[in-house]
């Protein structure tokens, strides 16, 4: 199993969620995050005092999938979240040892 962590632009969230639903992904975890990479922060001005705000709001999706499904999920997120401009985000793919459903105690792919 794999965990796919995708940090994307907040306004692309609905597109990505719909696209993932289309390929049968039925659950995900969403976190509001702030960060920066190559896309630097933005400027804010208060009574003439300029501040550079480094951390930009993003959303982070967490999705657990069977290993063979991971590439398809990654491709789907890329095509739905891409604008072509700097700051589109990052996707991380991590190995997952096990998944346990709390209600039933099921483990492995069946618990996803």
């Amino acid at each position, binding site marked *: 199993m794999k965990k796919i962590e995708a940090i994307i632009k907040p306004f692309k969230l609905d597109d990505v969620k719909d696209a993932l639903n289309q390929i049968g992904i039925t659950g995900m975890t969403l976190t509001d995050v702030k960060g920066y990479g190559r896309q630097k922060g933005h400027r*804010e*001005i*208060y*009574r*003439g*005092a300029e*501040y550079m*705000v480094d951390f930009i709001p993003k959303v982070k999706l967490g999705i657990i999938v069977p290993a063979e499904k991971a590439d398809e999920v990654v491709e789907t997120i890329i095509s739905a979240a891409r604008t072509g401009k700097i700051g589109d985000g990052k996707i991380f793919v991590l190995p997952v040892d096990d998944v346990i459903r709390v209600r039933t105690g099921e483990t492995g792919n069946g618990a996803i």
Partner: protein
Amino acid sequence: MIDSGDTAFIMLSAAMVLLMTPALALFYAGMVRSKNVLGTILQSFVMIAVITFEWIYIGYTMSFGPDVNGLIGDLSMFALNGVGTAPSPTYATTIPQLVFMIYQCMFAVITPALITGAFAERVRFGPFILFSLLWTIVVYNPVCHWIWGGGWLADRGVLDFAGGLVVHLTSGAAAAAAVIVLGPRKGLGRDKFMPHNLPMTLLGTGLLWFGWFGFNGGSALAADGIAATAFVNTHVAGMAGLAMWVALEWVLYKQPTTLGAASGAIAGLATVTPAAGFISPHAAVVIGLLAGSACFAAVTYKNKVGFDDSLDVVGIHGLGGVIGTICLGIFASKAINPGGADGLLAGNASFLTTQVFGVVVVGVYAFVVSFVLLKIIDIICGGMRVSPEDETVGLDQAAHSENAYNM
């Protein structure tokens, strides 16, 4: 002879000016960081208690009691002795003196509250209360007497309709002294001092604007044509200040801002205050435009030199008081208010000189006395400032054991 219309108008005006103190609290509190919201609000709000106490026992008689050598009122009206439902023989002779007293009380309350913007986010509550109380006694009451209580500046012909000198310049000069004595906030230039809640500041701005109709309109001390003039001039100067500040931002920074709109409105309202009942609406427009641009420039300059007048008391109220008082020397017209004066444009250059003299006297007096008072309190109280640790934690937790936002 009591006039019921005048009495009703001034009682209502007094209530409107009272509202300006909590409005100022919100105006300021939106501009500080979220850890200092309640501390900032309380600094304004508590003035209602401290200064009303002071006012009914000694403030009113020092300001409006029988004159002693043009310098101060005597103490014959200590604790409101003789102040009742009959009109004063000297001031506002158509309303009960109690109404005049409580109306003036609201001005005394908001003036030290204005100063709190200068040392926002770093002053100790106890020394601050002591400062505000003593400051009202040694700065506000004497200056109020000199100009409105029949003192020596009034004799010289200095005019101040609703407090450009008495309220805005005294507080602005005290603010400058406070910034020098207390020093900048920890982390100035490194940390981001961004306003934590601008809608709160805008709510405060709206309530201040509303209250200002009572502040300036009521200063006619009657429901008459002069009140109408002041009422209209107040509104158009606030409007012009707002328009000017926003326009400048739009041109210089490519984007207009909400805080700029609030700042410009307050600059216009503060600047027209000394002139409100003495000038035409077109002069008020000019004053508002001038206020919007000059205060914008002053605040921008402050940011460049690192003078941490945190919420711009000097750049908006102090400068506004100066500009408005001098502009009155230019635009005043007896055709508008026969009880006023003719200014430079009406061919009377000497009145302009008189107004400049008033600005210098009040500015220097308020600055010097405030500076000395702050230094004395700083020494006897073991510091006006909170400890670096408390400053990091924030006033809400460190000084008041509260949180504004328990979410």
